[in-house]
């Protein structure tokens, strides 16, 4: 149709997903502009620039071949696991907990990269696993080890949020890989039993406190419950149409903690109201729905697991962050994809997106020659 006018490299991009996504990033930039007190610096400009750079990176990823992904799966996973160990060692030497690896030109958080990597390695694992063994211990134990290793390293950093995200991505991939349903049901049941015990024995004080405060934020409105309370005030006071761009008092007067990172959704809601909130939800629905449809359309087991796992990882970010800012989940340091200011989370999400785009390309390459 329009192929004669628009170059194929552009026309083949999934614009139905990318255009809403760009709108979302623009909204994010606007919110960050306002959060900075009406300035491009220090958040908004770097947010947009990062998105552009990472979008190019995603497109580059999307052009990689399926075989490259397959071959890279284990080495990439191994390398990131190595980085995790390295971070742990440096932290042990430097004293205190460390999550960052200073590369000189940027600081890298290997635990973030582990989120897409775990999906990739599991997709590769289940592709190579003989189908008949899917329901046997051989389908469970190696995958379990692949998840548990990085999860443990992240957990002792300590970073419960990221560890949960890694597990979530991995478990969803296993679920979609067709492991028997009752395994998941009984694991879920066991978790229900273990969780309260772990809560009182394994968690750090501040983590336990966060959970307790989540259950009753008003009990300590000026202490740890402050975050949740202020976030709810920001969202609730926005009303349907919001207070208007640049008029958010909760964020501008610093009542809202982290108005540009974890609580960026509350900052947005205060100024753009319910309308803005629904727009954000809609864009995420489009992006994640697109991701799931790409996974379903994928021709082979590797691509479908890869796309679905990546979608689940992105979904996990969105779900936990939004539930947190609305007071439905405890405060965990998980940013909102494409809106929160922060390089590493943008990188992770764009890797996920690039991977799904790659699967999408493989779909097109196979299916629609027309």
């Amino acid at each position, binding site marked *: 149709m329009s192929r004669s006018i628009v170059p194929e490299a552009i026309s083949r991009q999934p614009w139905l997903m990318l255009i809403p996504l760009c709108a979302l990033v623009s909204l994010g930039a606007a919110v960050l502009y306002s959060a900075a007190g009406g300035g491009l610096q220090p958040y908004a400009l770097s947010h947009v620039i990062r998105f552009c750079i990472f979008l190019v990176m995603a497109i580059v990823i999307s052009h990689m071949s399926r075989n490259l992904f397959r071959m890279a799966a284990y080495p990439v996973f191994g390398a990131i696991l190595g980085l995790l160990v390295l971070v742990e060692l440096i932290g042990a030497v430097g004293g205190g907990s460390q999550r960052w690896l200073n590369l000189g030109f940027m600081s890298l958080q290997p635990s973030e990269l582990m989120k897409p990597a775990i999906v990739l390695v599991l997709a590769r694992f289940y592709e190579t696993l003989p*189908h008949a063994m899917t329901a046997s211990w051989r389908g469970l134990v190696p995958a379990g080890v692949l998840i548990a290793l990085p999860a443990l390293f992240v957990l002792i950093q300590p970073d419960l949020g990221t560890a949960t995200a890694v597990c979530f991505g991995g478990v969803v991939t296993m679920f979609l*890989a067709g492991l028997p349903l009752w395994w998941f049901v009984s694991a879920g049941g066991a978790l229900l039993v273990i969780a309260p015990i772990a809560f009182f024995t394994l968690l750090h004080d501040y983590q336990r406190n966060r959970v307790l405060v989540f259950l009753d934020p008003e009990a300590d409105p000026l202490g740890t419950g402050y975050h949740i309370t202020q976030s709810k*005030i920001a969202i609730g*006071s926005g009303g*349907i149409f919001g207070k208007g761009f640049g008029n958010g008092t*909760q964020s501008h007067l610093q*009542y809202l903690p982290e108005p540009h990172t974890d609580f960026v959704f509350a900052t947005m809601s205060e100024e753009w109201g*319910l309308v803005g*909130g629904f727009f954000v939800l809609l864009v995420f629905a489009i992006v994640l729905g697109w991701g*799931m449809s790409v996974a379903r359309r994928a021709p082979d087991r590797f691509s479908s697991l890869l796309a679905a796992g990546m979608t689940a990882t992105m979904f996990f970010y969105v779900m936990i962050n939004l539930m947190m800012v609305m007071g439905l989940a405890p405060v965990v340091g998980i940013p909102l994809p494409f809106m929160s200011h922060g390089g590493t989370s943008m990188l992770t999400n764009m890797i996920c997106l690039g991977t799904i785009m790659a699967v999408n390309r493989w779909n097109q390459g196979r299916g629609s020659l027309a």
Partner: protein
Amino acid sequence: MKFSFRRLLRQPHVTTGTLRNSFDRRSVVMTGIQGGIGLLLASRMTYLAVFENEKYKLEAESNRVNLSLIPPRRGWLLDRNGTPLASNRADFRVDVVPEQMQDAERTIAQLGRLLSLTPIAMQDLQDKLDKSHGFAPVEVATGLDLERFSAVSVRLPDMPGVVTQRGFSRFYPTGPSVGHLIGYVGAASAEEYEKDHDPVLITPGYKVGKDALEKIFEKDLRGKPGARRVEVTASGRIVRNLDTREDVPGKTIKLTIDAGIQDYAARRIGPESAAVVVMDCQTGDVLAMASMPSYDPNSFSDGIGRLEWKMLSDDDHVPLRNKVLRGLYPPGSTVKPMVALSFMEAGLDPNESVFCGGGLRVGNRVFHCWNRRGHGQVNMAKGIYQSCDVYFYHFAQRIGMDPIALMARRLGLGQEFELPVVGQSYGTVPDPAWKLRKYHKEWQTFDTVNATIGQGYFLVNPLQQAVQASRLASGKIIMPRLIHDQEHKETPSLGIPPEHLAYIHQAMSDVANGPGSAPHARLPFPDIKLAGKTGTAQVVGLNIGNGKGGQWKHRDHGHFISFAPAENPRYACAVVCEHGGGSGSAYPIARDVLTYIFDKQKGMDILTDLEKKWGGTAKERLDARYRAYSAQYGVGAPAVSSEEESRKVQEAEAAQEPRQPIVSGAQSPAPEPEAATIPAPPAPVAPQSAPQGPTPGAARPGNTGGTQ
């Protein structure tokens, strides 16, 4: 078939097809879960933003807007001429709200450095913080200069809980002179806040009246607080002012007090422990009501520090007691004009005389006159101006106690007056019924003897003495007034025949201007005469001390009641000099105060000379004493707990009720009260040419000092 089914159970048959199938089903489930959570989030958000919108809007608003009260300017207290006795002055101040401080110790230390507080001030601040109740602000410093004020102001964001303010603070221009009259202000205590939940009470910088007029008129003086709505950040930094409502200053209250006389009277007391009351004896306006020593209400408003407590409690002159209202003293011979009036009312001819040989034998007992050598033939006038005890012993036997007690009450003794004061001790006018009621004992002859010379059970306060002098002077039922703007009612007459009053006036004039007991009380004016009556009240029996020297606590009280001009009374003045050693300590004060009233310059000259001897004005001496204390004790003064503090205040406020032990005999008047201090006047004073001529030549010029 059955076999293969069992095999399927053990090891499900998995193929590419079944896996694809299960992936499709499970991915739909996943999508469903995602959609479900999306719906959950959407509905949660709708709930927050639509249904709870009002609530959160309000909360965001209350986050953003900080309503701070501006303490109202306190109403002024003016004297009768409009001179402020208590005013406000613009002030830079710093307070802390203890419950808002994050690191109290560090903040206080930093404030101490920035404001360059002395170790004593730091200690007092710490004491105040220890006693504070969290929400109530604690004053750190007032009266700051702009430099120190700004040093704190710019660091406010780093010091949560610290409040700086440009406000007004109470100022008493004459300091200690008005201490007991006006009272003082201070931060509201938790109990006061409990009683009156006005939020202005816990506004930084607001002070409530703690004593006297400041306390009585608290509601009128308070005014209405202003309010400032400001937008603040979470850390409390003010972004901008939204709007401001000005405060409504409290009502101004005009007193009958004359600031000049009040200050003069207070300063003239000097180092003595005394009370002076000056009244307009035609209207009842109280012109001065001074009790010294006093405290400086200016330095009390920031709370009473350890050192101040030590100073106050070390002082045996009880600076916290308002002696005008709370001090009760046997009136001594000052009752004699009153007793004489009651004699005349009972029909006694004032010219009827009795021979005083230094004592009076009644039955087998002898009641002594203060002058053991006797006064010779004594009539009523001489009985007054020479203060002859025998005259009164003799005729009191005849007249009886009841008419005397009745007259005492008519003249205001033992009465409580309707005045805006925190408490009056009204004392005792004894009579037979009273004694029977109180001790279940019959009235005895010696009781009458004691009462006629103002001893025994008789107790009065200095205000009653002044009222008595006013009523004696005017013959009207003068009621003391403190508030100026009440309309004037015609004062009814006491119903005492004018000739009786004229006789008494003449006799009292002779006390100072004739052959009386206090010739040195004469005013330094040729045309203005003072009429008065001396009194010396024994505190301990003669077996313990002679009342003149020795231990301060054992010295006699000195009294003087007076009015002037003698012929046309306008001003009445009563002085009580606690343990002054006799009336010689009291009448010079009254004389100088009246001198000041008629000629300010002359009065001031006298005072200036005296103050040179004493080491400065009352305020200067108080300040010097404080410096000496701070040099001596520094931060070593003991802490005063809240209980101890309230106990001490109560102790001082409670009437100084001298014990009234049952009297079992006549009290001997102190002999030759002033022989040592008052030299004989050079020549006998020429008799007054008064119509009644109550100046018999029998006066012995060499013996003019006695009072009892």
